[in-house]
């Protein structure tokens, strides 16, 4: 036996006891594999993954199972963690002892052999028809086959990928490589991974986000022959999700636009109504005058109507133009630091004639003494609008009151009347331009755009506030506006 061992220096051999301990090793073994300690258990040199199988096999060997002389394939691992695939053939040399004949298992070659037979035409067909990218990696970490989907995904030709180290598919970033290595280690350890997100690099170097599924492939002797991976391109999924988001955004925008369109339609419809109403009177009364047969008293009355309605029309046209300029942001404000009270005083003078016509007394208490950054003409327009409304909706011979005072670091202006008042449910809508057409059928003629313009001038133009108080229909109303002392210029 000793002779055999020494004679066959080249052939790696181990003398193993029936308990699995190494009794002797030869130079061939040390050279091809690694030196082993005599007296050590052979199992301790078997790769941990293969150890269990080895032990089972070795037990059978002791019971003289018929598999006795078959060549077995195990991975050996030395104390430093070096792994070598080996084939061994046991030979019983005595009651207790065996000689194990070893050959280095050229695992790579074998795995290549494996692939040559494993990839049947049917398999190839499956391979090429999968829409996800599929790759096979051998134990050396080289790509040994890829499908067309992977080539398209990464922009390579098949021949470029075959033989390429799989690591090259991953990002150059250190942490990506580390991540990829870790993923592959997991595949090795657990046999498979699912839905792992990774970043690959295409031929041009661009990142390709993928989800990886992988599984190890073992040969007939349970040896690792490679890894099968499938990668799903997440960019498309992402693009699709992005597209979906965009679509829903667009749908929302279309909804908003058509809503706005409806509001605009209603507005135009209402503007048309407001313009045609005075025109109907102008046209009608002018025709009466032209036809003749009108007495002097009637003639005066009709001319008065035409004049009054023309003025109403002109005012409305100006309001519409103002409003459209304001809403388009084209109305330019000219802010000047100036005393507030004279501006309000001028507004009172401007409505004096109207007030006198209805014998309405305008009581004023204009002494806030405040100086503000304001656009004089626009603030005057606001005060005139509010006073005109107060006069319009007041009973003849009643009283309208206007007051300015200091409040909350700003100027408060209030216009109070004892007129028709505003129902609570309508108070919110007073400053809105005409509401919906369905509601407009019930609208009170001549509401106009005055208050909408007031709101825009005060709130958008001067960072102020405007509001109203009314105890209800028939109980009069009070309109307030407040301007900050330091208005934004």
């Amino acid at each position, binding site marked *: 036996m000793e002779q055999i061992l020494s004679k066959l220096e080249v052939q790696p051999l181990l003398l193993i006891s029936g308990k699995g301990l190494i009794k002797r090793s030869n130079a061939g073994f040390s050279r091809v594999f690694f030196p082993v300690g005599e007296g050590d258990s052979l199992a301790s040199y078997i790769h941990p993954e293969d150890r269990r199988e080895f032990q089972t096999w070795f037990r059978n060997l002791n019971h003289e199972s018929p598999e006795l002389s078959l060549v077995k394939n195990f991975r050996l691992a030395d104390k430093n963690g070096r792994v070598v695939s080996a084939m061994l053939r046991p030979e019983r040399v005595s009651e207790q002892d065996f000689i194990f004949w070893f050959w280095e298992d050229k695992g790579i070659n074998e795995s290549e052999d494996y692939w040559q037979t494993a990839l049947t035409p049917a398999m190839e067909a499956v391979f090429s028809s999968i829409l996800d990218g599929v790759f096979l990696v051998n134990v050396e970490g080289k790509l040994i086959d890829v499908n067309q989907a992977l080539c398209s995904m990464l922009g390579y030709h098949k021949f470029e990928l075959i033989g390429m180290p799989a690591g090259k598919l991953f990002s150059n970033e250190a942490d990506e490589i580390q991540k990829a290595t870790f993923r592959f280690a997991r595949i090795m350890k657990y046999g498979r991974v699912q839905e792992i997100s990774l970043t690959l690099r295409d031929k041009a170097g661009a990142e390709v986000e993928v989800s990886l599924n992988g599984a190890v492939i073992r040969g007939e002797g349970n040896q690792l022959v490679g890894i099968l991976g499938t990668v799903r391109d997440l960019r498309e999924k992402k693009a699709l999700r992005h597209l979906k988001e965009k679509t829903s955004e667009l749908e929302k925008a279309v909804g908003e636009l058509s809503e706005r369109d409806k509001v605009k339609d209603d507005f135009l419809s209402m503007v048309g109504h407001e313009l045609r109403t005075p025109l109907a009177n102008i046209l009608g009364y002018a025709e009466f005058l032209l036809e003749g047969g009108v007495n002097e008293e009637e003639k005066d009355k009709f001319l008065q109507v035409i004049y009054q309605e023309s003025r109403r029309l002109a005012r409305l046209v100006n309001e519409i133009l103002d409003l459209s300029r304001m809403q388009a942001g084209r109305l330019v404000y000219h802010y000047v630091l100036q005393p507030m009270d004279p501006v309000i005083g001028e507004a009172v003078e401007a409505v004096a004639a109207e007030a006198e016509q209805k014998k309405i007394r305008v009581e004023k208490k204009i002494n806030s003494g405040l100086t503000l950054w304001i656009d004089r003409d626009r603030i005057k327009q606001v005060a005139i609008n509010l006073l005109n409304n107060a006069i319009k909706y007041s009973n003849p011979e009643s009283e309208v009151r206007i007051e300015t005072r200091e409040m909350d670091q700003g100027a408060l202006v209030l216009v109070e009347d004892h007129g028709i008042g505003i129902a609570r449910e309508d108070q919110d809508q007073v400053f809105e331009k005409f509401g919906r057409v369905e509601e407009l059928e*019930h609208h009170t003629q001549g509401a106009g755009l005055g208050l909408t313009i007031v709101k825009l001038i005060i709130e958008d133009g001067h960072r102020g506030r405007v509001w109203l108080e009314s105890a209800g229909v028939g109980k009069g109303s009070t309109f307030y506006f407040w301007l900050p002392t330091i208005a934004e210029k």
Partner: protein
Amino acid sequence: MKPNKVVIIDDDKLLRSMLERLFEQQGWRCGSAGDGEEGMKLIRSVKPELLVLDIFLPGKWSGMDVLKLLKVDKSFPGMTVVMTTAADPARYLVPCREAGADILIPKPFSPNAFICQVKSLLEQKRGQRDGRAKDFFDRR
């Protein structure tokens, strides 16, 4: 001879006066109201041959509401209803027709053209009913 009766419902006082004058010139007896509720009362008491009804009215009932009420009521089968509006007529043409109005005349209108349209409408309706045309307006 008993004059024909017309009720005018419009919230524009000046327009009401204008129409009243127009119909009075033609020998009609006029009643007018500024909103739907008042107008309905007037229609019930006057029982006019002709109703001139504006669509936009302040208060509880719009002109459309009045029209629908009249259709449900069925107490005024022969009454001719002329709708008027300063709003976009295209929006109201079909609803008016469906609710039983005879014609929708958009504002602004020439008083003469208005009366001509109403006249020919009445003649047409009268002709359909009696099998012959009769001019309502030459009675004064």
